[in-house]
């Protein structure tokens, strides 16, 4: 390991299973993964292979039964809810397949929300949100509600919201799953650009094409990494 490379997170021998009819069904099986800062990882595999589960585990949305997980030298396997929300505000941004914007908030307010939880001052908030609106070319849409936007536009807002708090890591679970190919391409280009500016990205995807934007590909099958 080179000295200037900083480890962002590390999974060691993670097992995750559910009981089904008295049998253990493994979702993740002996999975180990090291992610360095600045990587762009694509997790691939067929439906049910554990892509989403892996992302959920990395995003601490889901737990696991065995193994160790360290995020920036903090052990996650026994983390408290409070610390977790702190990690979210500090380091992690999520992008979802179904965008998951808050329907009752405008574009502007959706982007602003993470900053509220990060307790950033009003003036600074304004500046940061405006930056994002500029950067994603959605200034004209800032007062619209999600339902007034197209899918591609919604996902742009979703990415903007994930980025506004300047996270170290973006977790994207099939970010283009609901988009057409042109919109997908835009989002992927955007990810690439972000990655080159230093943001670590982990995305789950079905598409070889999307995966090719990344710097590393992890193939999953039945919860295990394939060769």
């Amino acid at each position, binding site marked *: 390991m080179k000295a200037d490379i900083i480890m962002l997170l590390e999974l060691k021998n993670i097992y995750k299973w559910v009981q089904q009819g008295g049998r253990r069904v493994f979702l993740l099986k002996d999975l180990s993964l090291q992610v360095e800062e600045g990587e762009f990882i694509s997790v691939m595999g067929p439906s049910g292979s554990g892509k*989403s589960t892996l992302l*959920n585990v990395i*995003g601490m*949305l*889901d737990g696991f039964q065995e193994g160790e997980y360290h995020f920036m030298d903090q052990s996650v396997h026994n983390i408290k*809810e*409070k610390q977790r*929300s*702190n990690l*979210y*505000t*500090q380091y*992690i941004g*999520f992008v*979802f397949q*179904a965008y*998951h*914007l*808050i*329907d*009752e*908030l405008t574009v502007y*307010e959706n982007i*602003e*929300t*993470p900053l*509220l*939880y*990060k307790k950033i001052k009003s003036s600074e908030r304004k500046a940061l949100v405006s930056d994002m609106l500029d950067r994603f070319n959605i200034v004209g849409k800032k007062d619209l509600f999600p339902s007034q936007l197209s899918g591609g536009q919604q996902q742009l807002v979703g990415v903007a*919201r994930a980025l506004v*708090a300047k996270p170290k890591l973006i977790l994207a679970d099939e970010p283009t799953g609901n988009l057409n190919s042109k919109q997908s391409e835009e989002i992927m280009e955007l990810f690439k650009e972000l990655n080159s500016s230093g943001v670590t990205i982990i995305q789950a995807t079905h598409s070889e094409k999307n995966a090719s934007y990344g710097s590393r590909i992890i193939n999953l099958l039945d919860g295990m990494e394939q060769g």
Partner: protein
Amino acid sequence: MIVNYIKIAWRNLKRNKLFSLIHIISLSIGLSAAFVIGMMVYYDFTFDTFHKDGDRIYRIVSHIANSQEVYKNRGVTALLRDAAPEISGIEQTSYFHNWGVATAEAEGHNDIKRNPEGVIYTDSKYFEMFNYEWAVGHSSNILDAPNEVVLSRKRAKEYFPGLKITEIIGKHIVYNDSVTMTVRGIVENLKERTDFIFDEFVSLETARNTDSKNQVFPKDWGNTNSSSQLFIKLNENTPIKTIETQLADLAEKHTAIYFEKFGVKRSFILQPLADLHFNTDYGIFNNSGSEANKDVLLGLSFVALFLLLLGCINFVNLNTAQATSRAKEIGVRKTLGSSRKQLISQFLGETIVLTVMAAVISVILSIWLLGVFADFIPEGLTAGLWLQPQVLLFTVILVLLVAVFSGIYPSLVLSHFKPREVLSKATQLPGGNAGVRKFLTVFQFTIAQVFIIATILVGRQIYFMINKDLGFEAETTAYVVTPWNDAGYSQKEVLFNRINTIPELSLISQGGKPPASLSRSSSLVFVTRGTSEDKLDLEILNSDTSYFDTYGLQLIAGRKPLNDTIREYVINETTIEKFGYKTAENALGKELKMTDGTFPIVGVMKDFNQRSLKTGINPLAITGDIGRGEYTQFRNVHFRLPIEKENLKTAIDKIEKAFNETYPNDHFEIIFNDELVANFYRTEQRISTLLNWATGLSILISCLGLIGLVIHTTERRTKEIGIRKVLGASLTQVNILLCKEFLILVIIAFVIAAPLAYLGFSDWLQGYTYRKKISWWIFAASGIAMALIAAFVMSLRTVSTAMKNPVKSLRTE
């Protein structure tokens, strides 16, 4: 952050208009009830709280007990006034005596004030004990001499308009055309809420020359007068016990011959100042009966509490049921870094916004309600009470409490959602605990059901009491009251003769009270049974002989008295039984041994109810105007009214004319016996009105909640309904399926409510001698009514759901 919360709260309100409306209506009903009732409680509990050392001030009242009952009298014998300063441990005493004045004529003013209220005999100590401020004059050396008067500023302005208050000093006022008083001082009216509503303070010594002489300066301790009020202020740290002992000694020492003779025992009781406004046993200082009833206030508070609870329950139920619609937002917020605490405060914030809106509406509503419930509400209570800091604070605290109470459970449920669960596509979302919702719904309907049953039962009891045959003619009879200050007989006879010529009236008679009234007078009768001699009460009605016909009283043995003034008695059947005469025939010819002689029983009449049906029938006798020489009992003229409306109107006009010709300066008053009887049940009728409202409102709130839940379930089950219809279910079957789960709750509520209502109502009925039987069908009917109402409300929604085209509902899934 807070702005953000309020914004999202507001948008949520707008988006779910129907649900917001349900929340706001339910909460405003509860809150308005709480506001109005809270103000009533506050109002009544803040009477006379401002007196200095008020916790050490007591009123001395008298209990006079014979072997059967205890008569509670708010007054004492005036002689205790002179003995009280001897009692050790007392810092101050103050005595006053209500004086009923017929006329007051202020110097230099031609109009005479009739029956001025709030006139008392007292001395300067009164002003010291109750912290009066002097506008002119000083409490030393005042009201020592006879014929001195102190006025309140308000009364002084009325008597001497246009004069400066300093100019009023030294002016004269003539009371009852006979006593001339000099104004010696003017005090400010007490500014805070008080029952001491007096305006004219006449020196005690004056009483020696007026009709109150024997009450204010009685010759012996045998006299107890409810107008004679004695207040004492204890020394600091004096135990009440020591005062009570000394009072008991005093009572013992001055056991008057009278008391010994009639076998009664008098004791003096200390009543704390704070109890004054609430104790209906003693009342305040007059007979208007405006003292507050703690039981009523407690009952009202429960009604408010229940309505508030019902409103909160709607909020809890609908919010947890609707939780799924917020689930995504919660998941997203959590991934954006929101902590659980922040989410909880967000939802509580939303609840507060909603509750505040409801509160604003409730303030307006309760101003309106103060008008609707004017019957219940003391006159001095207005919406202006809100400006008092305590009331304002109470309002704010109540609103916050309600918000927290209704918001806390939903926000715990909502903030508990796991982002992974709510953000993934397929999983069935949790919606809080359906068991909790069911429990709360059952609770709501139990309350509504209890109210329904109680309303019907109380209504039936009132109807029964008002319409029961009382044993005399009440529907078509009425009487005219002669002025109370006319003590002689001659004018009354003139009035009787005038009314006697009115052709529309029949069966006119003279007499005292009507057969049934709230007042009672009785004589003591010595009844020998075996070896012992009992002293028994016999209620007395004084009347002429035609009174029997006027009221349709039936003689079952003997005859009426020979004339209108002879002292012969016609007793009722209860007397026969209670006095041990065995049969009516046996009673005839017996003599009643009274304190002033022995008098014959000449007749026996059938029993009739002489009071409200809460109580039974007491021994009663009718006799003539036996005291006419000194004081006539024939104060009223009784008659039968014509039945036809037109004749009735002419008859009453003619009666009024006759009255005005006889008593040109007095107020004409005619009392209809059916109204008088109905008035016995004023409390019950108020309860009934209140129950009607409580029932209506609790049904409304519960049904609003129900419809909210139904909307929620039908939405969740759209797909199921679609499938069932494709499989061939009929509209009715689908409807039944949808209503079933809620109807079961309503039925459970009924099962809980019925015994509760039964127990509560039987307890209430214990206060009534005459009871309408509780029949099972009332319970059945009210249960069915509740179920029908619930079914109707539900079908508003389920029918439209059931009618949905299954193709559509299945496609949308």
